[in-house]
């Protein structure tokens, strides 16, 4: 085994064990950032020793013993005079004596502890970006370097984000606990937001550049499954999971051999991952059982589900999609949602009805400079036979488009409209 192989093998064990290490230490030390520091030290020790000694037979127990020893040392070295800490240290020694074999990896129910840790990492006091970095680090076991590469940011930026976030957590003395009742729903949305941010960061990336970008999708999906299994009564947790599973099911069909993106309606549906679609539909079914079909994530998932359930693009149930968009538009005021609704209405009812919606969006400041607005408008005008107006819209959209491929496509459509105008 080369040093690099050993390194990768150790990180693999680490990713499995790390959340449990942090939660165990956090419970004893009552300090999540400190617990995280000490588990990182245990990892460094493993990275130093295991290449020499080989990976121990029970690597999880080794890491746990090493982390606990560090926690004990820390308490002894530090504020030993403080009675509270003495008590904790004593407790821990008691525990260690009572459990000389630390192979209890399977005996504690990680669920509640993990949920508590996720709520801490995603505390609303932290910025969204800081929450995402801290979550990837503490829950997913990614290193600072991996997070930086995944977000295409310098190491120093991520390192600083993590340090600041941990300081905020330490200084504010935030309780390490799972919120209950009304507070749970509020805090949960702060967690779901972070998970979806991580997912989209990976999903919208031009793929194939770096495995760590798609890796973000997978980590977000995993977090989504974690939340759905440890907070099973929260419909939006299942809604977000459904949305992510259904979106991710199209991954293999989203780019062509040259790496260019393929629009959903043009994708080869045989490449959609049926296993993942089934999982997404199961999660959506769970949302409905819980009476949460009207949630923000659930509605978006239901829209994607309409696409995944259609065997061909032509079989898409556009009137259902436009109905779901109308529901979504009623709870999130967003011109982007309205624009999407217009597209669905255009497919379900025809271009006239859709154009009425789009025309109301033209003055929307949030859509100024957004190329899809003139692009959709051009398409509707073209279908109505108003070719000269359509040409002008496509030309405007091409001028605004961010990437070459889209610009080319829009210029081609402008030229088609111009030809149609000539021969009309």
């Amino acid at each position, binding site marked *: 085994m080369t040093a690099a192989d050993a390194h990768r*093998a150790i990180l693999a*064990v680490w990713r499995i064990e790390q*959340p449990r290490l942090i939660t165990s230490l956090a419970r004893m030390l009552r300090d999540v950032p400190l617990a995280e520091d000490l588990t990182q030290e245990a990892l460094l020790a493993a990275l130093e020793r295991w290449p020499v000694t080989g990976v121990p037979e029970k690597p999880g127990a080794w890491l746990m013993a090493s982390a606990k020893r560090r926690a004990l040392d820390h308490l002894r070295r530090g504020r030993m005079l403080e009675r509270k800490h003495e008590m904790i240290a004593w407790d821990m020694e008691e525990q260690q004596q009572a459990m000389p074999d630390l192979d209890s990896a399977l*005996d504690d129910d990680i669920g509640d502890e993990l949920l508590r840790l996720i709520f801490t990492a995603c505390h609303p006091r932290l910025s969204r970006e800081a929450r995402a970095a801290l979550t990837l680090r503490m829950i997913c076991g990614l290193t600072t370097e991996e997070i930086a590469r995944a977000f295409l940011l310098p190491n120093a930026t991520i390192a600083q984000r993590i340090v600041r976030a941990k300081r905020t957590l330490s200084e504010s003395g935030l309780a390490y606990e799972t919120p209950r009742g009304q507070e749970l729903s509020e805090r949960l949305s702060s967690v779901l937001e972070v998970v979806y941010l991580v997912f989209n960061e990976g999903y919208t990336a031009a793929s194939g550049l770096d*495995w760590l970008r798609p890796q973000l999708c997978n980590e977000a999906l995993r977090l*989504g*499954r974690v939340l759905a299994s440890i907070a099973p009564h929260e419909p939006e947790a299942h809604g977000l999971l459904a949305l992510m599973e259904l979106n991710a099911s199209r991954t293999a069909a989203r780019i062509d051999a040259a790496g260019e993106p393929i629009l959903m309606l043009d994708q080869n549906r045989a490449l959609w991952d049926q296993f993942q679609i089934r999982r997404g539909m199961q999660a959506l079914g769970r949302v409905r059982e819980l009476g949460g079909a009207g949630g923000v994530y659930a509605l978006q998932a239901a829209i994607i589900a309409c696409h995944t359930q259609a065997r061909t693009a032509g079989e898409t149930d556009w009137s259902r999609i436009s109905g779901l968009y109308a529901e979504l538009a009623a709870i999130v005021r967003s011109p982007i949602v309205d624009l999407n609704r217009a597209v669905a209405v255009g497919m379900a009812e025809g271009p006239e009805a859709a154009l009425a919606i789009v025309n109301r969006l033209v003055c929307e400041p949030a859509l100024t400079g957004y190329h899809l607005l003139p692009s959709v408008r051009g398409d509707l005008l073209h279908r109505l036979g108003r070719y000269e107006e359509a040409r002008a819209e496509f030309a405007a959209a091409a001028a605004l488009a961010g990437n070459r491929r889209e610009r080319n496509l829009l210029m081609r459509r402008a030229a088609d409209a111009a030809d149609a105008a000539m021969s009309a």
Partner: protein
Amino acid sequence: MRFMFIVKSAHPGPPTPELLEAMNKLADREIKAGRLLDMGGLTPLVTGAQVRIADGQLGVVDGPFVEAKEVIGGYAIFELPGKEEAVASATEFMQLHKDLFPGWEGVCELRAFASSGS
């Protein structure tokens, strides 16, 4: 990456209650960790059948199959970052067998899905 773990053994008989309990705990932990997507144990070979093509002929053979040495006892589907994680995970699973099912010998084969992307 999505992996299928296939557990094969020539060892007949059901697992010990201790192993069964430990495997349930491990499965529960892995489901809660979002890594284990699906799993299942398979009934004995005698209840199965094979549909095969040999010499251009289709044929059905009911179990047990005399030539079968190692039998697939169960499978699991995991979503993991990469092969190293899959090996670590399978190692933990097999360690339970070593500790709690004395005398058992077998293989946990892990294979990445061809189409599951990255």
